[in-house]
């Protein structure tokens, strides 16, 4: 019975080690195995009405909206937090029957490029932490629905 010479064994071991290192390096840099970055989103749904007052939790949004849109009352209808990774889709049903869908495409600085779909409106937005993205205007219960999407700080 023939046995491999020590030189062959050493050479074979060297080849296998090289292949192993190569495979490890490939998978380390491969986006397939790269860990998806996750983002914590906060969705706040508000109801702006022609009468009423600014309700609890709506003050921050009232300061932003009042300069742009005319209304009297503003109250929070619901708030939801969702942790969504890149290439995953977050989804929040809205009171008017529509659904807010958002999908972080790429991490970017302190935020992400996010594809958002709400009702018939869709777009890509570069979102940064703490900066709200506000969609408003849909008629609902005698007022307007306002949907706020933001990445939690």
């Amino acid at each position, binding site marked *: 019975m023939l046995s491999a010479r020590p030189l062959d064994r050493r050479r074979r071991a060297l080849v296998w080690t090289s292949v192993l290192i190569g495979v490890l390096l490939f998978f380390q840099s491969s986006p397939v195995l790269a860990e998806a970055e996750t983002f914590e989103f906060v969705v706040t749904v508000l109801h702006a009405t*022609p009468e009423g007052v600014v309700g609890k939790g709506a003050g921050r949004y009232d300061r*932003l*909206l009042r*300069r*742009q*849109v*005319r*209304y009297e009352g503003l109250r929070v209808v619901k708030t939801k937090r969702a942790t969504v990774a890149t290439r995953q889709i977050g989804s929040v049903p809205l009171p008017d029957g529509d659904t807010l869908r958002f999908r972080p495409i790429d991490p970017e600085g302190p935020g992400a*490029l996010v594809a958002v779909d709400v*009702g*018939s*409106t*869709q*777009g*890509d*937005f*570069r*979102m*940064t932490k703490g*900066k*709200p*993205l*506000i*969609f*408003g*205007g*849909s*008629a609902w219960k005698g007022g*307007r629905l306002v949907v706020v999407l933001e990445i939690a700080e």
Partner: protein
Amino acid sequence: MNAPLDERQIQELAAYHDGELGFLARLRVRRWLSRDPQARDELDGFATLGELLREEESLAVIPDLWPAIERRLPERRAPQEAARPSAWRTGWLPVGGLAAAAATALVLAVGLDWGDAPDASSVRWLDTGNRTAAVLQDDKEATIIWILDADDQASRRIDRAVS
């Protein structure tokens, strides 16, 4: 036969024509132009349109209407304020029409390319389907997009007709 250019491609060509694209986006458009005759035709169309517009501007005599408009402003303000309580629907129209126009212009100016936009703005691409929308604000503080319902748009048309 090539597929017709879509809205985004036309916007990109318009931005290229107007010199609004960044360095990398310009290079990309040039590469595209070098291999797509349809895009080159579209760009030629922009150039022709620009020349026609410039000719039109040079021919037009624009009278200064501001003094006459200014004289009428106080008269117009009173009836509008009186009508406000019953005009709830119109009240939803953006408070600052100017702000809306500026914001919409900002969206167009921002272009569709990630790298070309100023840092503070968020809107990269926006499609509101068959509804009209205004980007009321897009700065470091917030991005506000307001969808105008059919009622809003009808009210706006009535406002225009009345004025």
